[in-house]
């Protein structure tokens, strides 16, 4: 019998207690009394014992979310309470977020997980309430002020289960905060609760294994330096075969002007590797003096989904390496959360990076004073500037086989406010670009549904639910404009949007922006190009096609 068919007892339960909680006015009901139910497809595998031991994290053991007993440490309540108290002192924002919500409901239907599930606990206001209710009970003064206004509850094991369920159905995308009149950032509440849960060993292997690998080897998959180099060299060979141009990246080269760091997915995964080929072609095209590190070989920072300290440590690694190699500044590839870490937290965590110089484009002379503190420039800014100064020879016709739309990655859009640069590049490297609906792009962009370390295979059901609003917006441009290519500038997107498209919109492929740049770049000494970097035939360039500009 199929493993996802419900058991008879489940069916009976379903009919007996047809979910009716929270219909209408939820504040009048004790919604927290409803137990959460873990079943296949709605929980991520917990951190492996050896991974926790590697990281020195709490409570390594064998367990599953479906277990009745989660084997929490004896003093877990104390750990959580004290953990919360110390963090309330440390982060004023957290206290503000917990105290200032007036329950206006403006955020309620803005979360993609709520829109994909209809589960009230996925309304950002209620998600935050899962923590707030405990906070009120723990902090009598606040409770006194708020008495009669809202509920408080005891910290029980059931609450921990509920936290695990719902703070892992938040991708820390911040869409809700855009609509909140007070700017309450539920993403930061989620970050904090996940940090608290890690203190008692309630965790997710899909997040912790990359953290541990990154901590030890330097990247998410734990690829060692020689394999890392080997991978990039095979891409160099592919570029040679396709274009006849030999690009020459260097590794760990001291004294290079720029250290280039990108998510490691671009070095080992499909379709990330095509984006990597795009970067390599671009750097060759402009003769950039750059190097790639085999130690700081990861732009992503899953520490952000784990704890503040871990995020700090993994971020620091990039800067240590920049110092060791004696580069002037950092150039960062297409990544989402890496940019949120760099843009919002780096300077107060590890900054200022005084040993580096304020980045100046060696080609255009543009000074990136927006990166004066972090000394790290986003590749989309860098390339948009090159195009603006007409420093690239581009043939957008080479992307005529692609009818594109652009997905704003949450962290780049809402986390650093970058909207126009990628669009300006896209308009210059292809001829067919159609925006999705206004309320689903730029600062209102919908998450891919798999961000913040939730792109585990076993979590596919939840990911498909959470990604539905994004997929639905793509479908509209697919139907209206025959869009077949979803372009993005985030490595998690490149990994998670292919299954999302395959499920909701078969026929739509996912591309990194610099892959399209790589297709369009007219390289010096290149041979006649008939296929794109994926070896797909380019429209109009089949035999006899005209490739002269």
């Amino acid at each position, binding site marked *: 019998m199929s493993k996802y068919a*419900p058991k008879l007892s489940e*069916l009976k339960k379903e009919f007996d207690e047809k979910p009716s909680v929270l219909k209408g006015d939820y504040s009048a009901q004790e919604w927290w009394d409803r137990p959460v139910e873990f079943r296949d497809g709605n929980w991520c595998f917990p951190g492996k014992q050896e991974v926790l031991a590697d990281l020195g994290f709490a409570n390594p053991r064998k367990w599953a979310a479906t277990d009745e007993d989660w084997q929490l440490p004896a003093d877990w309540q104390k750990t959580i309470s004290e953990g919360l108290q110390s963090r309330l002192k440390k982060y004023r924002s957290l206290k503000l977020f917990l105290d200032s919500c007036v329950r206006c409901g403006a955020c309620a239907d803005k979360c993609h997980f709520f*829109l994909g599930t209809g589960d009230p606990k996925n309304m950002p206001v209620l998600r935050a309430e899962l923590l707030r209710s405990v906070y009120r009970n723990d902090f009598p003064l606040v409770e006194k002020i708020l008495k009669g206004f809202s509920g408080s509850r005891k910290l029980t094991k059931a609450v921990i289960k509920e936290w695990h369920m719902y703070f892992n159905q938040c991708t820390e995308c911040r869409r809700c905060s855009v609509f909140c009149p007070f700017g309450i950032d539920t993403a930061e509440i989620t970050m904090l609760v996940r940090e608290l849960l890690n203190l008692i060993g309630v965790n997710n292997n899909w997040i912790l294994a990359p953290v541990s690998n990154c901590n030890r080897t330097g990247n998410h998959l734990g690829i060692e330096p020689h394999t890392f180099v080997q991978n990039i060299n095979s891409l160099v060979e592919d570029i040679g075969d396709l274009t006849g141009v030999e690009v020459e990246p260097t590794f760990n080269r001291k004294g290079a002007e720029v250290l280039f760091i990108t998510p490691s997915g671009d070095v*080992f995964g*499909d379709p990330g590797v095509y984006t990597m080929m795009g970067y390599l072609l671009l750097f060759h095209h402009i003769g950039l003096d750059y190097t790639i590190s085999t130690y700081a070989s990861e732009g992503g920072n899953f520490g952000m989904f784990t704890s503040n300290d871990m995020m700090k440590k993994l971020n620091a690694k990039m800067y240590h390496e920049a110092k060791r190699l004696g580069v002037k500044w950092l150039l960062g590839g297409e990544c989402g959360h890496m940019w949120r870490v760099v843009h919002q937290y780096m300077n107060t965590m590890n900054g200022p990076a005084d040993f580096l110089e304020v980045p100046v484009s060696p080609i255009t002379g543009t000074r990136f004073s927006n990166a004066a503190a972090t000394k790290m420039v986003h590749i989309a800014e860098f390339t948009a500037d090159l195009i603006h100064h007409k420093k690239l020879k581009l043939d957008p016709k080479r992307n005529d086989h692609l009818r594109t739309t652009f997905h704003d990655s949450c962290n780049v859009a809402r986390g650093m406010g970058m909207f126009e640069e990628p669009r300006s590049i896209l308009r210059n490297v292809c001829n067919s670009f159609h925006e999705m609906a206004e309320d689903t792009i730029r600062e209102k962009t919908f998450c891919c549904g798999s961000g913040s370390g939730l792109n585990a295979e076993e979590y596919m059901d939840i990911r498909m639910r959470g990604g539905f609003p994004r997929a*639905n917006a793509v479908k509209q441009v697919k139907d209206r404009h025959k869009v077949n290519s979803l372009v993005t500038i985030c490595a998690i997107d490149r*990994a998670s949007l292919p*299954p999302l498209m395959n499920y909701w919109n078969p026929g739509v492929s996912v591309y990194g922006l610099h892959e399209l740049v790589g297709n369009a770049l007219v390289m010096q000494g290149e041979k006649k190009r008939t296929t794109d970097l994926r070896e797909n035939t380019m429209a109009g360039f089949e035999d006899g096609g005209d490739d002269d500009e």
Partner: protein
Amino acid sequence: MVTQYSMKRGWTEFLEANKKAILERWLDCALALFPEKMGYSTPIGTVFSGALEKILSSLGKRENDCKEALDDVTRILAVQNFPPSKALSIFLEPKLILHDIMMKTTVADTLMQEAFNSRLDALTLEAFDSYMRHREKIYQLKVEEGSRRMYMALRRAEA
């Protein structure tokens, strides 16, 4: 042949005349499947409303041309937290709705109602197939994702 034609025409007219009422109630039931009733203007609300209308219209036609609409609905249902039995119950819902409407109108045509019910039964079975296809797709996605992630390693292994 002649009687069949006139029944068919009466049936189409009946459906057309009551389409709005049936659709409203049907959509309400479908959206109420979710723990918190889904709003009409949400992405799921919009897809359901478009698809259910197409399905309803196709019930009045000889040719069954609602496959795509059926897929749109089951694709959403197949990844929800409720069991298939509950998810697919929405395709049986119109029987009750139609019954109610017929009781209120003068057109209490049992033949028509039987025809409608058997169309719905067939539709429910089709929906089941489609639902299962989507479940299988989920498993396929997991496998594909694994190999995409290991793309370079697999390439080396094959070389």
